[in-house]
């Protein structure tokens, strides 16, 4: 078990900097999730930690060791691949034992550890089977078993849930979380799915274009996003963004409506409102002419336009809004975000 530290890390493919310069500290025992859109460099970063991609510049530490020049095997990490990368010609047992065998562990020791890991992951009945005879979910467990059995310093997960169907994904998500609490090993988990990030992480790293946008707990990322990108990426449906002018009474929309927002700033800004932070308003507020109603059961999504901007509000199902109807919506107190219109940075 160890921390992972990246200092001034730079990665270049050809002439293109995929990671210009990055500093990050992942604490011991921590469950860290890298999240971001495709091409943001999250997988590259994970592969750099694994030792599958060479570092262009900067330093990488696992524990106190600088591991830049160590092979993946020497770094004492284990990795669960997106396609699981099980050895097709080996049984489940052999798959799990292989890494230990390569490290010259004693036969008896290997057997104890494989059986223990298999018991923990409930794959004991599968030990004699080959990967092609397993379902997707079972393969996923074997891939985790292969990592667990090694008892490494750091676990690396490269989008391990993306090949599972929705129901199974939810289940395995919970199991990985439980596993991490039980093993207390440092885990780094890459995903493009913000639900996975929010539900599993101790801390989240939001990446874009190889640059860290924000590092924080799920709560921090959700409630105090560093900038417009993070605010829009985390949360589903996405945050609504409206161009406003800030004045003494609050934020004035382009159609003249004044929304009460507490701020001392003046001038143009971007107002961010999460769908769940709209609330029915008696008088004043936005006049939202409903374009589309999506009842989800527990709540209902209402689509409407504010000027040229399409917005979504999450309302209680008993509101029973109808298409074409006009709702008056306000913003829950203290839940509005303001962003700099140029830089996108959140205004305090």
């Amino acid at each position, binding site marked *: 078990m160890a921390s992972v530290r990246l200092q001034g890390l730079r990665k270049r493919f050809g002439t293109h900097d995929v990671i210009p310069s990055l500093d990050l500290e992942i604490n011991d025992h921590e469950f860290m999730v890298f999240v971001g859109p495709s091409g943001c460099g999250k997988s590259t970063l994970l592969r750099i930690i694994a030792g599958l991609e060479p570092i262009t510049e900067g330093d990488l530490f696992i524990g106190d060791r600088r591991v830049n020049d160590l092979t993946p095997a020497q770094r004492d990490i284990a990795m669960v691949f997106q*396609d699981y*990368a099980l*050895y097709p010609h080996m049984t489940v047992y052999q798959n799990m034992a292989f*890494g230990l065998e390569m490290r010259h562990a004693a036969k008896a020791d290997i057997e104890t550890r494989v059986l223990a890991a298999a018991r923990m992951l409930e794959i004991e009945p599968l030990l004699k089977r080959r990967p092609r005879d397993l379902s997707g979910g079972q393969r996923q467990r074997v891939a985790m078993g292969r990592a667990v059995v*090694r008892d490494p310093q750091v676990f690396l997960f490269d989008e391990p849930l993306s090949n599972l169907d929705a129901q199974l994904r939810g289940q395995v998500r919970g199991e990985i979380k439980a596993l991490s609490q039980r093993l207390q090993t440092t885990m780094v988990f890459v995903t493009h799915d913000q639900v996975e990030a929010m539900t599993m992480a101790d801390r989240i790293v939001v990446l874009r274009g190889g640059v860290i946008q924000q590092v924080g707990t799920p709560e921090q990322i959700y409630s105090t996003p560093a900038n417009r990108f993070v605010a829009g990426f985390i949360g589903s449906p996405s945050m609504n963004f409206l161009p406003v002018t800030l004045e003494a009474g609050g934020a004035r929309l382009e159609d003249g409506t004044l929304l009460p927002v507490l701020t001392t700033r003046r001038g143009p800004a971007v107002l961010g409102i999460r769908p769940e932070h709209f609330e029915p308003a008696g008088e004043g507020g936005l006049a939202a002419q409903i374009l589309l109603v999506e009842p989800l059961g527990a709540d209902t999504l209402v689509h409407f336009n504010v000027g040229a901007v399409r917005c979504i509000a999450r309302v209680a199902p008993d509101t029973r809004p109808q298409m074409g109807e006009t709702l008056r919506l306000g913003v829950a107190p203290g839940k509005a975000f303001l962003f700099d219109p140029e830089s996108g940075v959140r205004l305090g």
Partner: protein
Amino acid sequence: MNKRILHILVVAQLVVVALGILFPIVWMVMSSLKSSADVTAYPPSFLFKPTLENYTHLLETTPFFAYARNSLIESGASTILGLALGIPAAYAASVTRSSWPALVTLSARMAPGTLFLVPWYVVFKALGLVGTYAALILTQAAITLPIVIWVLLPAFDAIPRSILEAALVDGCGVLRSLWRVALPLVSSGLVIATILGFVFSWNYFLFALVLSDEGTKPLVVAAFNYIGEGSTDWGGLMAAATLIALPPLVLAIAVQRWLVAGLTLGAVKG
């Protein structure tokens, strides 16, 4: 009914074509089993009393087994050499995604044998190696090595990269990931490479024609001598031909399904 008739037509044409392909081989085997009177009968006889006298005569009057031994040694050793050189080269080329081995391989395949033969002859003559197994094995490996690379490169390429990475994370060095992970995954390719290498080395004529002597002569070169003597002895000639063709045919037919898949894979990938 339209579809049925069409299918019958297709099958009928296939049967005719297959018989046409088979005819020369069947004719060879039939002639080898005919007595000297039957084999030169005109019109040719289809009903005849089969005899093994051509084979016994061939094996008694010529050192057929010695030639067969030469063929076996030269083809076997050149195949092993081709595999020993080609497996690691194909793996390295696949892992590093470099294309030069394929390029060199193809070029070596494209050049006519006479392009290499003069220098080989000069050098081996100077070294006193003309007529030795060493010279024949080395030159025949120039046939087997390209075949091994040609068959194995696409096979290695088909292994998902993540599996090789997993082996790396599990602690395999380069040699061990080749030996323990990659090679078992291309086992059918390996069989095809071995068999094709052996067959084409067994069949290759030109190098041995120049570089072998009486003691190291392989069957295909010895067969050429039978032709001179055999102008009157068709039965004996066909008996020799049958025996020489037998090992490649048996080997190839034993793995026919994989062989066809392997050939097509290499070719379709270009």
